[in-house]
């Protein structure tokens, strides 16, 4: 019996209870992760972090939330009122929606009902997460536009370009997983990882997903949409009070959602790490929730670590990286995965598979050598042109083709 059919025969009250639980989990996790992030980043910067409100400062985030809600709600005069109000609502609802297809546990006994803590198992579950993410961008873009001010508009434009670009890399990194699992449903993908987690089998896909999930959530070092040094607050510059709190909530729920998706796709979801399978005998399957939770928290820690370590990227370098590195590498990797998959399915001999793998490794090495050579060649070309006559006013360097022509003309 696969996970989709287990979920399908849930009675209504179980579905409602699950929905409430998932929602509550997201909100509580947000409060805790805001606190966690501040504490961890503080440690990394040799500070203490919030430690006054509650034990270890645990309810600092709650106190901040209450303060935020009680602040004055300002709508700028130049703002487009309706869109200004709708934007944060779009942002926050879509990121909660993404959680509907994420399995939080293995099979558990929920008040006498055998089920899985997952709202629904769509046959296109992973694409559904991508779809909610792409609607979520509307929140950011519309917030930027409706504020009626320059910085938010720039932030909104940046973020839409960024999220669209990184969504492509992200979508392509799913393809390897789909090919291996033979399905797009989260339940089937977890079932397909029973022997090896995808992080081992499909490491390049995993690496690309992790990079693009940071780009997708607008987090440091890719937080160009709200680069405070350049754009004040970016798209949420003009927002205050509860509306700002909604964006804040959306950002953290989004981080947790992409972490949960990474866990599902690459780290075996709620299944126990190798060698610890016996834990599922304890607590009747509920122990799997602990594994899931730990994996998600590990990703969250990684997010905070990145923020504490890396400076923000320059915008053009960031876009170049997405389009010229991540996407082509991803496409080449999908070709390799698809070929290997087909070879094993057709029952090709070990020699053929080993030969293909060797050929791929050689091709990668060859491509790298050619790339290095071409760099040297470009330098030689530059030397051939020689030092340009020092211009008396600042002009960009001419393309070599034109410069050579000019030299011949002289």
């Amino acid at each position, binding site marked *: 019996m696969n996970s989709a059919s287990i979920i399908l025969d849930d009675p209504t009250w179980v579905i409602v209870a699950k929905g409430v639980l998932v929602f509550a989990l997201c909100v509580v996790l947000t409060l805790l992760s805001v606190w966690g992030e501040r504490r961890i980043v503080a440690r990394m910067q040799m500070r203490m972090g919030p430690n006054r409100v509650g034990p270890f400062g645990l309810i600092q985030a709650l106190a901040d939330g209450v303060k935020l809600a009680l602040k004055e709600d300002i709508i700028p005069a130049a703002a*487009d009122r309706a*869109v200004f109000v709708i934007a944060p609502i779009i942002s926050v609802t879509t990121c909660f929606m993404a959680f509907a297809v994420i399995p939080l546990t293995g099979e558990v006994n929920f008040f006498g009902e055998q089920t899985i803590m997952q709202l629904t198992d*769509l*046959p*296109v579950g992973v*694409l*559904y997460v*991508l*779809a909610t*993410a*792409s*609607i979520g*961008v*509307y929140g950011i*873009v*519309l917030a*930027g*536009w409706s504020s009626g001010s320059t910085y938010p*508009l720039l932030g*909104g*434009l940046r973020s*839409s*370009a960024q999220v*669209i670009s990184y*969504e492509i890399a992200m*979508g392509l990194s799913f393809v390897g997983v789909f090919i291996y699992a033979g*399905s*797009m449903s989260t339940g089937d993908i977890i079932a397909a990882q029973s022997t090896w987690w995808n992080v081992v089998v499909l490491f390049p896909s995993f690496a690309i997903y992790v990079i693009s999930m940071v780009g997708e959530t607008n987090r440091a070092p890719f937080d160009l949409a709200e680069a405070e040094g350049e754009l004040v607050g970016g798209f949420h510059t003009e927002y205050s009070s509860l509306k700002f709190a909604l964006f804040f909530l959306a950002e953290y729920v989004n981080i947790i959602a992409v972490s949960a998706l990474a866990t599902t796709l690459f780290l075996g979801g709620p299944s126990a790490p190798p060698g610890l399978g016996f834990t599922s005998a304890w607590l009747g399957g509920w122990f799997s929730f602990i594994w899931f939770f730990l994996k998600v928290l590990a990703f969250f820690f990684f997010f905070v670590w990145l923020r504490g370590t890396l400076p923000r990227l320059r915008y053009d370098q960031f876009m170049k990286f997405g389009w010229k590195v991540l996407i082509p590498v991803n496409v080449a990797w999908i070709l390799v995965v698809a070929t290997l998959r087909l070879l094993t399915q057709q029952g090709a001999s070990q020699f053929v598979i080993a030969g293909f793998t060797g050929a791929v490794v050689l091709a990668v090495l060859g491509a790298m050598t050619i790339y290095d050579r071409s760099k040297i060649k*470009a*330098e030689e*070309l*530059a030397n051939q*042109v020689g030092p340009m006559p020092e211009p*008396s*006013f*600042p002009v*960009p*360097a*001419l*393309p*070599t*083709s*034109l*410069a050579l022509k000019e030299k011949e003309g002289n």
Partner: protein
Amino acid sequence: MSGESALFWVLAPLAVLASVAMLFMKKAVHSAILLAWVMITLAIFYIALEAPFLGIVQIVVYTGAVMMLFLFILMLVGVDSSDSLVEKIKGIRSVAIFTALAFSLTLITFIARAELGRPSVGLDEANSGGNVEGLAQYLFSDYVWAFEVISALLITAALGAMVLAHSEKSDVARTSQRARSIARFRGKSIATAAGLPGSGVYARNNALDLPALLPDGKPSDLSTAEVLHRRGDVAESKSYQLEGLPKIDDEGNK
């Protein structure tokens, strides 16, 4: 009433309202949002009609990518003010009216031929091996040729747009940020390692050609651009200092 028809009767009027309102909105961005909403409701209908793949792809591709690019351009260009009603290209209005009429006639004839209330035929058969698998079967066997031709066409269009928008960039190797940073710290002096000083700010003038004053009162050559020095366009900062203060000469003596 089944869940499906309840969904239909709630969402369908909203979709129709939104699509009609889209035509009458004054701001282009509002129209775009309403159109996005119509697309999302269509996607929900597809999913309710047991075509989950089509529904999700509709959202990812149309709402997430195409409509978003539309919005992007609208915001970038700022098409907000009311459109001009002057005919810029001669006869364009009559062509537009004719095309609109022809298109609506086609639509009306097709819709008029539809039969309502018929049970769906062949859905279970088509979805027997799973919705996605069934689609894949068609796309990569019967229709693989059409599929490939369309993707080739799209790629050609994308490449064409890139060629048209391309401008030749310098391929002369530039010193990297890293090399420049090292040079700054390993140079003769690290006095400027943190960056060059900005030009002067005075009560009566703060143009770029006015050198800043060093702590000892001398004008700093580094604070103005090299180009201005070559052109001899650097102004005297002395003349903009406040009067009544002890004057400082170039040597820094009072």
